[in-house]
């Protein structure tokens, strides 16, 4: 691919990402109505007053959409931070200390072997669907895969000549862990961060669609779930306005995150893409 084309594509992705973030941050200013209030008649078609129309109880869909993107990005950001921190701490601990490894790695293996959606369905229903609970559950159950990566980096690095030299010079285990092993794991963290952003947008939308979204907060997933709760949805002439905008927003969010993770991967470690080795597909 020519360099200009690649740059143009990367630029387009950044513009899209910036637009989504701007919509999320500026939602309170941009939204013409309070998304939770009844702004007009139910099922109003798009008009200058309601640019995307209204939903089954008369809430303005454009305002809901803007706040929905805001919720998605809020969840994604917090989950990514928490989950990255967790997997980093666990991976580092398991790579440095034997007892920690003996306790943590079986847990990692168990969590990785389980199908995640039924686990989310059970835990989120039990604690009650609210935004903080959702963030906590998504973070608590999404760290294992990357904890393994961090641990393997630490183990590889432990055998590196410079670490061995430091050990020969009498460095303590604590010194080795903080001065040499910890910095070595830093360059895999951005990849984990952006992969988890993608995962969290994906998971929040899916769980919200299954009725596990925070009932008090609007997200694109709860908008779709609400539309699909209506048994007569497709008999109403306004159905495209109820279904297409939130679906398009989720699509834009996950695709932007996916493209950004690919661009990041290519920029950070072009040599790590060995032909023949499977790419990481999941977060």
């Amino acid at each position, binding site marked *: 691919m020519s360099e200009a084309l690649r740059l143009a594509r990367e630029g387009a992705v950044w513009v899209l990402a910036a637009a989504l973030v701007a919509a999320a941050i500026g939602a309170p200013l941009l939204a013409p109505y309070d998304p939770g209030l009844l702004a007009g008649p139910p099922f109003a078609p798009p008009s200058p007053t309601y640019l995307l129309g209204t939903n089954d109880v008369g809430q303005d869909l454009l305002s809901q959409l803007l706040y929905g993107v805001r919720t998605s990005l809020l969840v994604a950001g917090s989950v990514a931070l928490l989950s990255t921190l967790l997997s980093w701490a666990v991976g580092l601990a398991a790579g440095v200390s034997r007892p920690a490894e003996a306790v943590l790695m079986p847990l990692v293996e168990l969590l990785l072997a389980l199908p995640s959606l039924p686990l989310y*369905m059970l835990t989120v229903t039990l604690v009650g669907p609210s935004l903080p609970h959702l963030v906590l559950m998504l973070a608590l159950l999404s760290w294992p895969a990357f904890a393994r990566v961090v641990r393997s980096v630490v183990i590889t690095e432990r055998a590196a000549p410079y670490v061995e030299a430091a050990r020969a010079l009498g460095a303590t285990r604590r010194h080795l862990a903080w001065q040499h092993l910890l910095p070595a794991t830093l360059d895999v963290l951005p990849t984990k961060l952006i992969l988890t952003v993608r995962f969290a947008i994906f998971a929040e939308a899916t769980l919200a669609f299954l009725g596990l979204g925070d009932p008090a907060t609007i997200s694109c997933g709860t908008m779709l779930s609400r539309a699909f709760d209506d048994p007569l949805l497709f008999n109403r002439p306004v159905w495209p306005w109820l279904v297409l905008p939130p679906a398009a927003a989720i699509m834009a969010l996950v695709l932007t995150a996916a493209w950004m993770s690919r661009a990041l991967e290519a920029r950070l470690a072009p040599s790590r893409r060995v032909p023949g080795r499977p790419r990481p597909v999941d977060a």
Partner: protein
Amino acid sequence: MSRAAVRLLIRYLLLAGGVILLNFLIPRLLPGDPLHVGAAEGLDSGLPLPATAQAQLRAYYHLDAPLAGQLGAYLGDLARGDLGWSLAANAPVGQLLLDRLPWTLGLLLTALLIAAATGTALGLLAGWAPAGPRDRVLVALTAALAALPEFLIAIGLLLVFAITLRWFPLLGGRTLFVEDRTDLLGRGRSALDIAWHLTLPAAALVLAGTAGFVLIARDVTVGIRQAPWLIVARAKGLSERQIAVRHALPNLALPLLTYFGLRLGAVLGGALVVERVFHVPGLGLLGYEAIRARDYPVLQALFLLSSLGVLLANCGVELLYLRLARRQPALHE
């Protein structure tokens, strides 16, 4: 049985034990009281129970026993195949799940097999000429499809093929109010009816699931494209198609088999969500109804059953892998 196989079985038995223990611990570790539904949202219990009734319920569910006693009661129930009583459906949970299982299993296995087959074929095509136009289009397309949530793909298919074109039904697993006939013709007709209803849900899962298979088959193909035995095959004058199918394809079997096992859990999740879009009466719809009704026993059994199922299938896949890997000791690299 080889030592590797024994080790594998022990590992999976331990994992299964972990799942059973986790299923026991999750409701007990998470905040909330089973007798106080709604407390998590700051709501009052809808039905204030007198103290005697509360004590009675706690005794009935063994909640007054110490944790070890509760675990004993739980394991005893499990050993008898008792998964609890659904509060919403007022029926044994095991029976509810068993009734819905065939739909999900059928959907899941059909979609996964089709996805694996098409993904392998497309990946071989893409990897045969890496960085060519075909490769680029396929990789970009599959990467985008893999990023989308399954329910979005399902909604897209629904909008195009069920609502705009009207080729397929909007929802359900079969046509309602049609009398079941037991003769051969009637059975064939109802099988066709079910297949017609499940085409779109399965297609959504295939579209979402193919991507990973394409990427792995492609990467392995790129790695072995210049392998000595393929050069020999070329020197013999075989056509490119013969070389690809007869000499390259078998090398994809092992990595794809591993990936097949890894994907099971994710595709199961996809099936559960897609069932909600199309109202297929499988485990996913049951789970959705249970979420709305706060029917914890159903969700717990769903978690237990699907986890054990995925573990069992993965164990089978890994045993098969051991058998196949033994037959070809010198793997490419």
